[in-house]
């Protein structure tokens, strides 16, 4: 089998290509404006869904606990969290746009580095924020169910509640967060890593991504 044979066969498939294109010529712009579904776009989409769902949940909680004496903490925490998230999303988008797209390998490496950093940072943030949120929620629920706020602020009661919930919730949150983050983002990052590894195979290229 000679190489020119393959090249000739390859050239012959141009006919198929133009036949296919003829079918969709009028549709090209409509198709080009559809929503993207590749790895990177899916991650962006997932982040957006989370942001909207989070805001909706926070608004819902605010109305549900409107009469609760701890509502100020909930509101303050929510505002702080979303200001922080908004700023971090803004920085990420800025970095995302500045990724060098000169060639396939560099852009994959750039996306990978950015996503890995954000992924790790978000996981750590969730490990810290979620137990606090749960504990606060637990305390608010206690008051909502008729518990006495003054009983709760007794140092020993508060310490026990916080201690037990920190241990129990810490373990649950660690486990759930890992699974959730992997499902939402980790699996896509792994795919990108695989693509990058294949492009950098055999050690001939120096990888800056780790």
């Amino acid at each position, binding site marked *: 089998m000679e190489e020119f044979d393959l090249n000739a066969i390859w050239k012959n*498939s141009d006919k198929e290509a133009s036949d296919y*294109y003829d079918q969709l010529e009028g549709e090209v712009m409509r198709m080009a404006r559809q929503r993207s579904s590749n790895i990177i776009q899916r991650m962006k989409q997932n982040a957006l869904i989370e942001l909207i769902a989070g805001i909706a949940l926070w608004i819902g909680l605010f109305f549900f606990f409107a009469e609760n004496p701890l509502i100020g903490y909930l509101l303050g925490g929510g505002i702080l969290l979303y200001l922080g998230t908004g700023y971090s999303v803004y920085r990420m988008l800025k970095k995302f746009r500045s990724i060098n*797209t000169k060639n*396939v390998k560099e852009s994959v490496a750039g996306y990978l580095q950015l996503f890995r950093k954000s992924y790790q940072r978000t996981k750590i943030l969730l490990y810290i924020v979620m137990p606090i949120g749960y504990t606060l929620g637990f305390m608010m629920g206690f008051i909502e169910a008729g518990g006495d706020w003054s009983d709760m602020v007794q140092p020993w009661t508060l310490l026990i509640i916080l201690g037990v919930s920190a241990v129990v919730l810490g373990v649950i949150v660690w486990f759930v967060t890992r699974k959730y983050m992997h499902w939402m983002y980790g699996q896509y990052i792994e795919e990108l890593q695989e693509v990058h590894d294949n492009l950098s195979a055999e050690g*001939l290229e120096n990888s800056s991504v780790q």
Partner: protein
Amino acid sequence: MEETFKHIIAEHNGILYKIARSYASEKVDFDDLYQEMLIQLWNSFARFQGKAKISTWIYRVALNTALTFTKKKKRKPPTTQVTAWMMEKADDGVAQLDLERKQQQKIDLLYQSINELPKDERALILLHLEGKSYEESADIIGITTNYVGVKIMRIKKRLYKLLSEKGYGRI
């Protein structure tokens, strides 16, 4: 801007088609990938400043998309192989000449074999088959020219083996 974009795509639709066929083995994935490449090209079209050749820009964006393309999950209907779909299309209407049919079979076998290569190797072999030099391929992918040369030799060997196993020589 739209007219220019449409004109560019019409001129270079072969690149998109060949990349989509090399990276998708099922018709439904082929259509998704082709569309995904159009989306990414349209999104980056405004940023294309003409520093590179148009075909080089299309290769970069389209290959980047193909390499990071994931199949949509949980599809219900049974999928059709791209090859089978192409064959059905080819069999429609007037019966083809034997030579044309053989040509079609060879094209399908070539795509089937390319489909079985790892993703990064598919990118390199299709650039090679398109007649791109090692330098151009290295520039598009972002690897060294020497590496392209070494890889192409290996990929071709593997491709020939796959084609032989599929009975390419007997057509």
